[in-house]
């Protein structure tokens, strides 16, 4: 099954999903398609005028461009997903790497889709870490059934 992970660039989540025998939908894979595409449309990162258009499908014109830009990549991933794992309050999901409004929009769009979904808190201790791994593993095992 194709599993959407949030944060979409998470190393830990990607690894857990892959080990669980599913296909993780990650930001890295989408970025790879852009930056390694032969014949550069718009060097160095291949962001073309078509990307904001894709983003407009998920966020309106008034929404900050950062949200629309992110949604241009993340939106189609949400559409493809058969299930999703959301880890809330990850430190890096807000600040120089992430975007809080995009995270809210991702959560909203995933809730709109009728797919299996699990929401867990980002672990801050060893015990919380163990619980998170267990919950995610159980979720992935249940998907197999």
């Amino acid at each position, binding site marked *: 099954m194709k599993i959407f992970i949030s*944060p979409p*660039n*998470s*190393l*830990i989540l*990607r*690894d*857990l999903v*892959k*080990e669980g025998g599913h296909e993780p939908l*990650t*930001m*890295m*894979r*989408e*970025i*790879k398609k*852009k*930056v*390694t595409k032969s014949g550069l449309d718009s060097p*160095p*990162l291949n962001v073309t005028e078509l990307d904001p258009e894709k983003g407009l499908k998920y966020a309106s014109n008034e929404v900050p461009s950062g949200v629309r830009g992110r949604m241009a990549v993340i939106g189609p991933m949400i559409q493809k997903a058969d299930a999703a794992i959301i880890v809330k309050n*990850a*430190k*890096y999901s807000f*600040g*120089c*790497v992430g975007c809080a409004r995009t995270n809210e929009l991702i959560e909203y769009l995933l809730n709109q889709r009728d797919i299996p979904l699990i929401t867990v808190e*980002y*672990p801050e*201790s*060893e015990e*919380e*870490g*163990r619980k*998170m*791994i*267990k919950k995610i593993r159980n979720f992935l095992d249940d998907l197999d059934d």
Partner: protein
Amino acid sequence: METRIIVISPASSLTPSYVAKVLHKTGLSLTVKETCFGVIIEGNEKDIKKAVEKVRDLNSEEVYIKERGFPVADKRRCRAEHGSRPGFCQLQSEYETMSYLSKSSSEEEEEEEKKEKEGKLDVEDLEKLVKEEAD
């Protein structure tokens, strides 16, 4: 070409240099770059798959692997090209988190799971136990 970032958990006894050596010994056609957090590998899909299996065989509990969008030493990302550090804030943050993540379940957890599976005691059995205790 496929690129993978292999990150070794801070709790692990494995070292990036050891993992790099093991990968070199496999004789696969790979670019192996040793870094402070682990190893970055690049090669064709078949070789990458074999390399990932090899690394997981070393210790799958303490090794985390993900794809990388940019190729190894890509001029748009590599620090060697333009000096300033582009930032690995997310990787750094997840590296900290890894120290208290354990992919393998402890003995205590396994016992708890067993108890959960066994379920609650039957009323009749409980009554028997109470009677036995009373006698």
